[in-house]
């Protein structure tokens, strides 16, 4: 049974959900952008040249800034030891996205691993989202 302490405020829930969505987008777009730059060339490329060659880096950068701002808000309302493990749900979304969007393969035991991650997140979600943080209550 859920206790009052383990119920997640809607603002925190939305913040965590957004963190997972943004993390998934960053991971998949970042890989796509890096893959488009050959390893040998990437060692000698300046940041400016890399961005000109692959504008996706700009999108990734913008998503990372959004990710940081959202994450700071999340941390205002939850313990780091609660919020960070919850975002491991992006394992699930990145793995599925890698298969569907990037054409990478997935093993049956990887699916078992994903199930373990989901079970772990479920346990963490039942452990209460914040300890005593009186000065953060109205942020």
């Amino acid at each position, binding site marked *: 049974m859920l206790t009052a302490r383990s119920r997640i405020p809607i603002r925190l829930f939305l913040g965590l959900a957004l963190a997972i969505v943004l993390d998934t987008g960053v*991971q*998949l777009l*970042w*890989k796509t952008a*890096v*893959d488009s730059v050959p*390893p040998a060339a*990437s060692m000698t490329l300046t940041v400016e040249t890399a961005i000109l060659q692959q504008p996706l880096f700009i999108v990734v950068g913008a998503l*990372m800034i959004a990710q*940081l701002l959202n*994450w*700071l808000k999340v*941390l*205002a309302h939850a*313990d*780091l*030891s*609660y919020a*960070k*493990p919850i*975002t*491991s749900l992006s*394992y699930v979304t*990145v*793995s599925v996205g*890698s298969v569907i969007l*990037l054409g*990478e393969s*997935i*093993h049956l*035991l*990887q699916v*078992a*691993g*994903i*199930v*373990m*991650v*989901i*079970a*772990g*997140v*479920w*346990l*963490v*979600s*039942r*452990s*209460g989202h914040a*300890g005593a*943080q009186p*000065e*953060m209550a109205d*942020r």
Partner: protein
Amino acid sequence: MSEIALGTLLVTMSTLVEGMGQTLLKKSWLDLRRRALWVTLGVALLLLDIVFYSGALWFLPVSTAFPISGLSFAVAVVFSWWLLSETVTPTRWAGVILIVGGASLVVAFS
């Protein structure tokens, strides 16, 4: 050093740096008088994490690199408990162990 070993080393370094960066970002809410300092240091470490992780992605597929970097979940919890004195209940530890175990499975068979 093989490409896989180099990629694994880079992503491991990125994991530790990210865990510390996250800890400093949380610290910014616990020490509001020096909030700017903690946010700046935290962001600096997260940028360093980006450098390490970008390097790792040249040598590893994202389906391998991302789960390894997921060890930062455990690192963040240990740092939260150790450096921020957060209360980590047995249920939360169990959840984190499951998450890391699940990530290991994903890594082992990628």
